[in-house]
């Protein structure tokens, strides 16, 4: 049912959208720069372009792509259209880690900012706990995954509330700011690491797309159609969680992308994961670049938290899409 032509057309168009957006976004900003001066290495245009805008666009692209892909994976895994990258507690584990760092005033671990390290550690602990509880006994099922994830989520949120309550004024502000999420410029080494992880995850997810299709229908359905259910579910959970964890450690929680992008694309390209996963990645990446560009330019020099933009921009568009196209354009 999927011809190569359709596949490449859909992936090509979404990659084109991403390419155009990623090419234009670094040219926009609160201070105007001259391209010739920036490329010639003249200050401050060079620094603004290469150390402020481009790294930020790259981080936005990786975060948007990873969150959209992670949303697709969790929705297939839980067979729940409302699942998001945050449903299974990874994000609140990361948040708890970050809040612990802020509250105890930790600055850095081994040269890395402490907030990243503890956020990632928090997410990793959550993943390990959820897997060990959900995979115990008979076999992994989406029901136990969901219950365990949601419970861990509540426990972490309670711990965050408690820490926030005991925190001082400055720390309290830092906590709120982190929990709002946001994209900032990062050094290139970090970005290379994050891109490697995201691209590997993308390749693995596309390679498993046929298996995700049967998993999205049902567990017994998948198990009798050539899929090793337990290992596929574990892979899906780890893939989605790692993507979410690594992005969240750098950006804090950015909502709505993991829900909006996969659903919007299902309406346009259909439910087949072979097309849905790569297009979600590119469109998610492009969408978050657009949102972040708006976040840093609309009220410049002040910045709007990017999560506010994703919801304000994406929400109405999504409702329009739902109302105007009940059926897939792509069959």
């Amino acid at each position, binding site marked *: 049912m999927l011809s190569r032509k359709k596949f490449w057309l859909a992936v090509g168009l979404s990659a084109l959208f991403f390419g155009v957006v990623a090419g234009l976004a670094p040219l926009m900003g609160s201070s105007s720069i001259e391209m010739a001066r920036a490329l010639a290495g003249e200050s401050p245009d060079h620094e603004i372009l290469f150390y402020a805008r481009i790294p930020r666009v790259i981080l936005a692209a990786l975060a948007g792509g990873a969150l959209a892909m992670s949303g697709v994976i969790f929705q297939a895994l839980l067979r729940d259209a409302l699942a998001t990258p945050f449903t299974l507690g990874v994000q609140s584990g990361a948040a708890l880690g970050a809040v612990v760092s802020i509250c105890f005033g930790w600055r850095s671990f081994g040269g890395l900012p402490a907030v990243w390290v503890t956020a990632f550690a928090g997410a990793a602990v959550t993943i390990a706990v959820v897997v060990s509880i959900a995979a115990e006994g008979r076999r992994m099922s989406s029901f136990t995954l969901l219950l365990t994830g949601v419970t861990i989520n509540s426990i972490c949120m309670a711990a965050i509330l408690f820490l926030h309550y005991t925190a001082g004024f400055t720390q309290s502000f830092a906590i709120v700011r982190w929990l709002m999420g946001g994209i900032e410029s990062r050094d290139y080494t970090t970005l290379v690491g994050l891109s490697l992880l995201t691209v590997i995850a993308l390749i693995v997810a596309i390679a498993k797309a046929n298996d995700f299709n049967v998993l999205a229908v049902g567990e017994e*359905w998948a198990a009798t159609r050539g899929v090793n259910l337990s290992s596929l579910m574990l892979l899906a959970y780890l893939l989605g969680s790692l993507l979410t964890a690594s992005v969240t450690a750098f950006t804090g929680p950015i909502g709505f992308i993991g829900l909006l992008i996969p659903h919007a694309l299902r309406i346009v390209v259909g439910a087949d994961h072979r097309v849905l996963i790569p297009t979600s990645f590119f469109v998610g990446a492009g969408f978050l670049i657009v949102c972040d560009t708006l976040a840093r330019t609309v009220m410049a020099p002040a910045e709007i938290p990017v999560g506010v933009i994703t919801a304000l921009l994406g929400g109405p568009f999504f409702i329009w899409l739902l109302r105007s196209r009940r059926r897939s354009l792509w069959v």
Partner: protein
Amino acid sequence: MTIYRVEDLRFRFGDAEILRGISLEFQSAQMAAVVGPNGAGKSTLMSVLSGFRDDYEGRCTFREVEIRQWKKRDLGRQLTFIPQMIRLEFPFTAGQVVFMGRTPYCHGLFESEEDREAVRKAMEITETTAFAHREFRELSGGERQRVVLAGALAQEPKVLLLDEPTTFLDLKHQISTYSLLQRLAREGIAIIAVTHDLNLAATYADRIVVMSQGSIAADGKPEKILTPSMLKDVFEVDADIRQSPEGQPWVFCQSPDGYLPETSTESFPPAPLPAAPPKC
């Protein structure tokens, strides 16, 4: 040829014992109907046979190898399972659902010419070609069931397991589904179908397995198995067994006020039936 050998199969959910020591065999080129009251363990037996539940006790071998030791991809080329119903959360088209039957054969991302041919044939047999591009969720219950059956056929299985395959089908498609299953059995496939319709089972199945409270209550040819005493013991209904013109047994259930005519065994079916006779 013996496909399944089940010996002293037990299964529990927590403290509840769902299967209590079942022993039986299933052959290829045979259509077996599994019947029994609600909670008898029919669906659990099916999910052990399908390889989905592998935490059973006792033995269940498929082609001489314990079923839990089969690699799922190999198993997927041998058997398939059609669930009672599937609820789709996502907008897959009917054609995409049929193509899922080819998953165990997939090499790489795209379907091969062979896959397309298998799907085309399966959709033709089940008369579903017309809905290929329609969204699965928008189809009626009966159309969905035929699409799911097409997917199972596209999988080219040697064993077809079905859990109540005709629940949502109209009369014509009930009959055509069962005739198709019968034809597949003649071609060498082992069919094992859970059903509540004893008369369809008696008409089309070579063998009826009656389950009750996690055990086998009776097992054999329909004419031997379907007796008033079995129906009384297992299903707790008063019933009469007549013969269809073709000589197959036909179950008439007695409603509490008893619509069954006292005499005349020659007319079939007894006319007129009340508006909604209780279904066995």
